[in-house]
């Protein structure tokens, strides 16, 4: 059996398992879509686009559609730690018109501080109830880093005054899967930048379970929703890279799919913001673009319903989906390999190898690995 056929079989089995779970809603997704004037055809189109987004062959779109139909059986608990709510804001932008709210309906959102109606004692009750009732079955999404200094006292949540550290450890125990949404939850983010006064850490550093890291400050709405869908469809973690990021989203360098890549290859660079090159869309490497060292699908998926991404807006990539980027990639308007960029003979790859040292070995391996290598091994 080839890789895709095997994966398809896995997906089907997973859906059978889901189908055997008790229903949460009597109404089908198609009844709901009809209420919103969404036709079956629109829905299949949406499924096809999600399939393409996940880098799966088109026949998988029927699985995507079936998964969306069954998605109401996956409870989602979303916790906020040391954060700025940018990732929630990104989630709220989920961009396929009308359908995102349906997906929202079908993932049972048990706890989300920015969106839930309940407050205070009653909100904490919702969390405790969900952790108990859906033990072993809920998806746990975490936004924000976990402060660990001073026994975690830099963050407490809820009437009972538990620290963020205590809450994460408890919630992780019963989670079917944990998704760290954004660079803070994944790698500590801005509060973990030097000198990291609160001892902020990524979730995977404080729990003993596998965690999916969605790097990005914030990750695009597509990377958040797509990752949740992957779990729902296949019932397991997607193939991950060396930093536990899903390969379907973080498998290629920003530089490789960049709309300005042709300019880089031709040696046409913006020398100063607002100059002739800036107006013509030249490469932003010399004004600090970190695309050559950054793995993400920003150039192909963009943000806000494909509206734009930083490089289109004339600002270099700042490498926000990479660990420690606030320290490793600052000063953001200067090229990382500036000391090497005497001529164009020094390619970005060489520069990366020198600057990132040992890390580059991993990045190289990562870049050539098949998206489904891990799935095949399973």
């Amino acid at each position, binding site marked *: 059996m080839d890789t895709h056929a095997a994966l398809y079989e896995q997906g089907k089995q997973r859906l059978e398992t889901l189908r055997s779970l008790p229903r949460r809603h009597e109404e089908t997704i198609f009844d709901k879509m009809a209420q919103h004037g969404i036709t079956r055809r629109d829905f299949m189109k949406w499924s096809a686009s999600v399939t393409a987004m996940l880098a799966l062959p088109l026949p998988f779109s029927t699985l995507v559609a079936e998964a969306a139909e069954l998605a109401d059986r996956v409870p989602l608990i979303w916790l906020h730690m040391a954060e700025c709510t940018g990732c929630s804001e*990104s989630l709220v932008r989920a961009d396929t018109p009308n359908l995102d709210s349906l997906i929202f309906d079908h993932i049972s959102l048990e706890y989300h*501080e920015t969106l839930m109606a309940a*407050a*205070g004692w009653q909100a904490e009750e919702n969390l405790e109830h969900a952790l108990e009732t859906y033990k072993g079955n809920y998806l746990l999404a975490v936004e924000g880093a976990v*402060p660990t200094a001073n026994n975690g006292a830099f963050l*407490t949540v809820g009437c009972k005054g538990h620290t963020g550290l205590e809450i994460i450890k408890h919630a992780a125990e019963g989670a079917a899967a944990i998704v760290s949404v954004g660079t803070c939850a994944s790698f500590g983010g*801005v509060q973990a930048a030097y000198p990291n006064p609160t001892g902020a850490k990524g979730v995977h550093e404080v729990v003993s379970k596998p965690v999916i890291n969605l790097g990005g400050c914030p990750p695009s709405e597509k990377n958040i929703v797509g990752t949740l869908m992957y779990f729902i469809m296949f019932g397991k973690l997607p193939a991950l890279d060396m930093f536990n990021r899903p390969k379907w989203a973080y498998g290629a360098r920003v530089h490789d799919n960049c709309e300005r890549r042709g300019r880089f290859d031709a040696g046409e660079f913006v020398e100063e913001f607002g100059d002739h090159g800036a107006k013509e869309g030249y490469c932003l490497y010399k004004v600090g673009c970190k695309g050559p060292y950054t793995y993400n699908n920003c150039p192909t998926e963009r943000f*806000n319903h494909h509206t734009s991404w930083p490089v289109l807006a*004339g*600002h270099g990539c700042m490498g926000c989906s990479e660990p420690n980027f606030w320290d490793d990639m600052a000063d953001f308007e200067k090229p990382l390999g500036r000391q090497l960029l005497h001529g164009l003979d020094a390619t970005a790859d060489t520069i990366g190898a020198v600057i990132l040292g040992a890390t580059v070995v991993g990045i190289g391996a990562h870049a050539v690995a098949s998206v489904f290598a891990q799935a095949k091994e399973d």
Partner: protein
Amino acid sequence: MSQRVVIDPITRIEGHLRVEVEVDENNVIQNAWSSSTLWRGIEVILKGRTPMDVGLIVQRICGVCTYSHYRCGTEAVENALGVKIPLNAKYLRSLMQTSLYMHDHIVHFYHLHGLDWVDVVSALSADPAKAAQVALKYTDKPIAAGEGELRAVQERVKGFVEKGQLGPFANAYWGNGTYKFTPEQNLIALSHYLKALEVQRVAAEMLAIFGGKQPHPQSLVVGGVTSVRDMLSPARLQEWKQKHAYVTDFIKRAYQADIVMAAEAFGTEPSVLGGVNVKNFLATDDFVLADGEYMFNGGVIMNGDLAGVSDINPDLIAEDVTHAWYSADNAQHPYDGTTVPNYTGFVERDTVYGKLPTLDGDGKYSWVKSPRYNGEPVEVGPLSSLLVSYARGNKVVVDAVNALLARTGLPVEALFTTLGRTAARMLQTVIVADEGLRTFDALLTNIQSDEATYVKPEIDANKEYVGHAMIEAPRGMLSHWIRIKGGKVENYQAVVPTTWNAGPKDANGKIGPYEASLIGLKLEDPTKPLEVIRIIHSFDPCMACSVHVMDFKGASLSEFKVSPNGL
């Protein structure tokens, strides 16, 4: 006998906020404490970095008013270095801010504040046909409020309720007696809640056109703006204008109408008639218009005296930490302050929910400092901005405020209420949407003869620079203060809107706007304190913004030490 009520987390806000109140035997609040329970230390992290990176880093203070800190931090550096940015850059920044306001205020009213006004469960018993007629009372062109649309919304939510699967609507204070909308009015507002989810996406796209993405746009740099190609593209400009028209349509036909509806329904509800108990207001000039004028004016109003509006004196701003989890002897000006964390934790006591850890009101109880203007607490936010502009005789604002009062039949005093605070946010959104087009037109005119978007800044490593910027964020006046030495950030501080509003009491026992707004409020049921949530939400809390530090020299906190010297 008095009882302690603990509310944590306050949901539907940015960040982590805890509020505790003490009610007497009649459930009237006698005392209130507001506390932020998270500290992140962004300004410590800034020290020793290049000033060119400041904007990108301080932007991560908040992902909601995501653009405000970006711009304020960038402009503080420009102020310090004496950089004068090109006119196009000013216009583009103003258009991005216009986009942010149109987005942020809609999300606040519908998705954060809305469920304090709208009883979702009540909406299920509404008659959709009747509701469609009711909608016509508040605008002659209702949006998402036709009979068929309302029926669809009702059936959709009914499915949740009948099966006990309320999802994000579960376990809220439904049925509380201070909800005042009729079932039909609730249904209209619920329909707008769902419609607004779609509208806010488009509003976010507006900012992304010139910003690259939203949240956390990435097109401002010290010296200007990078999105020159988008500025010069007629397709891009038109895209912005079309999205602007779409969002404005919703603002006029839904948001504006819903506030009028709320004013009518809640006009006699005691818990929304008070709530502005600190009558000092601060706002700054902001939103660059075509002719270099500002859409809103700056100034200070003390003791509710609209006739006595005066200019801001930045020297009179100081922060007190007597009851905040920091150590310092006196209130300090932003340029000279220190921040030495001093966490003292909670105190166990009886509450309406049994024994709980509670805030130590006599000691330290929040990570938020207490900014004071000339020693007095002040409120900032859309209400302050409108009051200052009103007091200044800003014609657009005066006309808008007077028209709303006439439309609702409310007296001027109604501005100084929770309702007034919420209505001011809507009025500000309408003004920003309308007037923002003047900036857009000015940009179109200017780019025909001028394509400049950037001036390269110069830093002399042998010089020391000091600068600050004051802007209006959606939650109120925001100021960033920077000291640059040796070409690096020597010191940094943000004095943010939520700090002004949410800070704990000061050394003189003076309380800030959050706490003051709650005292005297009567609760229907102390175990379901909807009234408290409603008042606090009317300020639009943003806690990540409010927690900041500036000077960490010598700081140590039981188990860790921090090097003071940056990178």
